[in-house]
């Protein structure tokens, strides 16, 4: 309280501080301060005007919950004793309801950011300069990395942007089911990126096909479809390629409708033929033909035909 007295005497020499006025309203002036303040209040119209405004400010602070626990208690016990002040508090509460409610919705999202900004003092010029320098350092560092270490930059770029080069044996699926007379448009799916190879669907059934000249029931190999929708049927097209390829395989129904095709096929490592994977879901019971051809530049030459039956 001694400190308060010193402040008070200083105040009294010039004028009372807002803090002193607030302590008067909360009944917290010392025995020395109180009579001097009372005397001034009775003779100084300016002080009276300030005390009247401080009353409103205090009522607002109470309504907006900006007072400490101690001040709230003093407010209720020492301030809120007159009907006039109670009316002031009523208006403060209405102002709070009227304006804070509007602000709450808009500021709710920004509240956390605002508080953090306020907590860390992010408005200070020192922070602004520090952030500016940091951004410049990052920019220079990135530029240096790109110029001096292109290989690192390339690696980073490759990781961020996966290669879009076509998969060598990217299959094409006909846009219509087998054994129907749907239009002949085809949907060409985007080629699979390299890293998708590992996630290729499992081979449900594998059957070796030898070249033939027609649908001959007695010689046609048959297969049973796997149950999984994601499974593929691997058609091992037995043939001794004399060229490295690339080859194209097309699956057609007995009626001649295209079901599925694969481009850029290459012989398997042993050189005994070509694996032609067909999604099992595209196959239905019936007879099928596989047309194998070699693609040489823009031209296409027929190599062999294979026949099989799905039971």
């Amino acid at each position, binding site marked *: 309280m001694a400190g308060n007295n010193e402040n008070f005497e200083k105040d009294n020499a010039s004028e009372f501080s807002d803090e002193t006025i607030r302590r008067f309203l909360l009944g917290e002036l010392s025995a020395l301060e109180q009579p001097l303040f009372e005397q001034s209040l009775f003779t100084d119209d300016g002080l009276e005007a300030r005390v009247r405004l401080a009353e409103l400010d205090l009522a607002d602070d109470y309504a907006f919950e900006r007072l400490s626990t101690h001040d709230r208690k003093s407010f209720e016990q020492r301030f809120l004793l007159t009907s006039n002040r109670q009316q002031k508090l009523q*208006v403060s509460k209405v102002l709070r309801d009227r304006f804070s409610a509007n602000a709450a919705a808009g500021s709710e999202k920004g509240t956390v950011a605002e508080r953090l900004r306020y907590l860390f003092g992010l408005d200070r010029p020192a922070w602004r300069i520090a952030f500016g320098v940091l951004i410049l350092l990052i920019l220079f560092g990135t530029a240096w990395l790109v110029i001096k270490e292109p290989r690192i930059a390339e690696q980073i770029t490759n990781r961020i942007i996966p290669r879009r080069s076509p998969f060598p044996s990217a299959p094409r699926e006909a846009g219509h089911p087998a054994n129907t007379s749907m239009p002949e448009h085809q949907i060409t799916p985007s080629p699979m990126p390299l890293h998708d190879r590992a996630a290729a669907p499992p081979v449900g059934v594998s059957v070796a096909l030898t070249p033939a000249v027609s649908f001959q029931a007695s010689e046609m190999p048959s297969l049973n479809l796997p149950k999984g929708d994601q499974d593929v049927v691997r058609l091992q097209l037995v043939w001794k390629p004399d060229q490295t390829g690339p080859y194209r395989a097309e699956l057609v129904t007995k009626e001649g409708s295209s079901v599925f095709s694969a481009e850029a096929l290459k012989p398997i490592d042993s050189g005994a033929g070509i694996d032609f994977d067909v999604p099992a879901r595209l196959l239905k019971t019936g007879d099928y033909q596989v047309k194998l051809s070699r693609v040489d530049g823009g031209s296409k030459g027929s190599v062999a035909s294979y026949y099989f039956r799905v039971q």
Partner: protein
Amino acid sequence: MYKSGVALRLPPHSKDMSPAKKLHILRQDEFDRLLRWLDPDPERAGLTYEKIRWRLVAILASRGCTRPEELADETIDRVARRVVDIQDSYVSDKAIYFLGVMNNVHHEYLKRPLPPRPTELNDDVEAKEKTHRCLEKCLDKLTPNSRRMIERYYAEDKQAKIDLRKRIAQEFGISLGTLRLRALRIREKLQACIEHCMQMETL
């Protein structure tokens, strides 16, 4: 209580009067004499009377008196009764005379303090709605600039008070102290307007 151009009537007596008050009820002529003593001009006398009463109440509340309005009225009553004796001889600041009498009244109160009057905060829905209606009416009476300032001043988060007020002050191109003063003066106008509006709605 006092309205410009209207003769000030004797204020209504409270239900809980101090012992001194019971001995003598203030008469209208005594009250009129008090006003004339304060100022020959009735309008200025009324304003002075209101000021003195407000100051008495503020001081008594600050002293921890639980019935500041009653003790302030008791003080005024005592001064009014003595005006006839002192009006020719008292030459000092008249307001200070009230302060002296108030000290006596408060001293008597401290010997036998009255129990605190329960706080009557009008929190019922109807009163709130009425206050809200009056607030809207009074906001409409403000100038666009004043209205914008008061809306910004009160649309604040409790934790970000200082930060937001700095920004508002920058926005209006004034200092923080000026902003507070201007906002509180607008608030004062609103308070008076709302109180008047509430009285009119009650009638």
